[in-house]
């Protein structure tokens, strides 16, 4: 029984795009191509200039500035130029690390990301697999509706979910009170249940919201990936008698792994410091036990009077944490050749 795996078709899958192709042997063409590449050695740099200038001037340079602020007492007076900036060394960082609210926010962020990211990936993958099996018209219809969710502006989406979970007049509480007791429903528990006044309920709502907003992107990416899998692979697998789970494990998943890893990385970055949704759901900063790092950064840096030095230090701390979390993936990607 032949074992099918991605390794059998190196030319088609997982091709690396580094470097010029091997000389096919015909002199004129090979020489031509070699000259082309050599003559245009500067080409990559020229092509990069506009993007590098844009990113460098508007993102990298401000990042460095913010890094500098984090070691200063930068506030409104300094911003307006009416007072000089002073170096405070690591004072901002120690303020953050000594603040119990920081650790609460960090814990909430980590646990939240640990729940939302896998849920989003699993849901998106499930929908992607579904879309792959549907007929053309149905697939377009369903993918269009899921992308509607993604296109809805964040604030509007958050407020809608807020209402749906509103203690007075919200659909969820209304429905739960009418559920029979043996399903966990009933008025005693659910009438007027306030989803936003404590941590677990509010993060449940936030999870549903972010999964709702996030899974379409995953679904369509997965669908795209699935569409490149040649039908023959699946057929051969079925001829060999492989069950659906084995097909998924041996064929589908390895093919989708690069996508999964990209999506995983992006999702972790986005969900870890997610701000607008949590801010609105937790009452615009009123409930400290519900903060995540996104809200915490905003409150520290933008309340009155704002402390930009502190905000800068926080941003750096957040970035370092994310780097630590994702360094494992980045290294693996490099090893796997994804970054070559």
């Amino acid at each position: 029984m032949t074992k099918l795996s991605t390794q059998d078709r190196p030319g088609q899958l997982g091709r690396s795009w580094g470097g010029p192709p091997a000389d096919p042997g015909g002199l004129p063409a090979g020489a031509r191509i070699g000259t082309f590449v050599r003559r245009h050695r500067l080409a990559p740099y020229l092509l990069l200039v506009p993007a590098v200038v844009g990113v460098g001037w508007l993102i990298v340079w401000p990042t460095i500035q913010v890094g500098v602020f984090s070691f200063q007492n930068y506030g409104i007076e300094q911003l307006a130029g009416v007072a000089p900036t002073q170096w405070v060394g690591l004072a901002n960082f120690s303020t953050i690390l000594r603040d119990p609210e920081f650790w609460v926010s960090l814990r909430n962020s980590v646990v939240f990301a640990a729940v939302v990211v896998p849920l989003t990936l699993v849901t998106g993958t499930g929908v992607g697999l579904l879309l792959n099996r549907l007929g053309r018209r149905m697939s377009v219809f369903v993918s269009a509706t899921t992308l509607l969710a993604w296109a809805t502006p964040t604030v509007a989406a958050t407020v809608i979910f807020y209402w749906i979970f509103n203690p007075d007049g919200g659909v969820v509480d209304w429905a739960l009170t009418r559920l029979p007791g043996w399903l966990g429903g009933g008025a005693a528990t659910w009438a007027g249940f306030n989803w936003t006044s404590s941590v677990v309920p509010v993060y449940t709502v936030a999870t549903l919201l972010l999964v709702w907003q996030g899974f379409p992107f995953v679904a369509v990416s997965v669908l795209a990936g699935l569409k490149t899998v040649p039908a023959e692979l699946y057929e051969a697998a079925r001829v060999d008698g492989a069950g659906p789970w084995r097909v998924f494990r041996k064929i589908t998943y390895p093919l989708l792994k690069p996508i999964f890893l990209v999506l995983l990385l992006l999702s972790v970055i986005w969900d870890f410091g997610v701000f607008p949704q949590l801010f609105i759901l937790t009452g615009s900063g009123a409930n400290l036990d519900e903060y995540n790092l996104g809200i915490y950064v905003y409150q520290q840096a933008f309340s009155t009077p704002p402390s930009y030095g502190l905000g800068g230090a926080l941003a750096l701390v957040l970035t370092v944490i994310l780097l630590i979390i994702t360094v494992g993936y980045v290294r693996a990607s490099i090893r796997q050749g994804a970054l070559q």
Partner: protein
Amino acid sequence: MRNYKAAGAILAVSALTALAAGCGSSNTPSSSGSVPAQLTVWRMGNSTPAQVTWMNGVVTQFHKAYPAYAKTKVHVVFVPWGNRTTDWTTAFSSGKNGPDITELGNTDTPTQASLGMLANISSDVHQWGPGSNIVKGMLANDTLGSSVYAVPWFGGVRGIWYRKDQFAKAGITAPPASWAQLVADAKLLMKKNPGTYGLGAPSDYTNGIVSFIWGAGGQVAVDQGGKWVAELNSPQSEAGIKFYADLYLTEHVSPKTYIGQTELGAPGATSGGSNEDFGLGKLDMYIDGPWAKAEFPKNSVDTANFASFPIPGESSGQSPAFAGGSDLAVWKLTKYPAASWDLVKTMDSVSNSTSFANSQGFFPPFANQLTGGAYSSNPLLAGFAKAATVTQISPLNAKNWAIADTTDAVIPTMMKALMQGANFTQTVNKANAELQTILNTGKK
């Protein structure tokens, strides 16, 4: 001889002119500054037709009263409350596109003044006729050290809303004069009106909770020689805090849903909360100010019987109410400080501030207006007017109060924890220590 007579005549004419100035007839500008082509006024909130009409009236008066400015346009800009801090900061830091005059919530004024965004108008205010009539506590809020940085424009205090017919049916002949009576009345009303709650006590309600702390004779924090000392854990303050928390915990006159909510309900919610419940008849007594009228649901019941009384003292008298409201200030970076102040004077004249305040459900900042009986005949406003005679602001005007209350939510967090059953002494002590640190350092 002739010189004295001339001098006397000149003095008399000057006095008459000054008097005339106070009455709003033709004036010369406060000082010979240049005449601006345009003055920009930043108002908080958003525009309504009524406000536009009012402002147009003021501008007409301004042009008539100061002929030198007859050609000066007045450009009114509305800034949503949520955007105001960013807008002030960026205007101040960029040095451009700031206002000439800005409205401020009176709790914003001390912070903005300390950041240097507001012009020092001490001498202007002292020379201003109505200035001596301003409620002392309100002007104190706008004063840093010995310099005045803004003038109060309108103010409001909280009291307790109730329905006259409900009281009558329950046999309550006079508003409660003590906390014990207040609770007894609440329970009685609950009995007579089954399915309702007696007195709403939302946990996210610093400006209401402080009345009870003050009413018990306690203080939130006191300024001792430049250093703040928090006093939430003094026996008196704790009595006030405990009373409020017990409205839910032991007396059961306030429902569980108000935990974590403001007086308007959960932030951002479309329904629920003590304001709506009172309007719909599900709550018998409701702590808020006269401005709450605008928030009641359209299908409120029995609105003709709405009335108010001041929050009673612990055993007698009144509990001091927090005086909220708005101020007017001249922007530090304005090119036309003199003209701006003249416009402020017009906006804040006794008649203009009164007409504006009344239309919004607030009170003008002038003491004689409040005690003059203008409101005592109005059953709804009479209680609030009475409440407005016993007010306190400090420490809610402290430089770092916004951090303590809005950013770190010390009192709401404390009350929420207490109502959820946390240990009383521990929770209050923790909040107290936090509050003191924040007030003194701006950080936890």
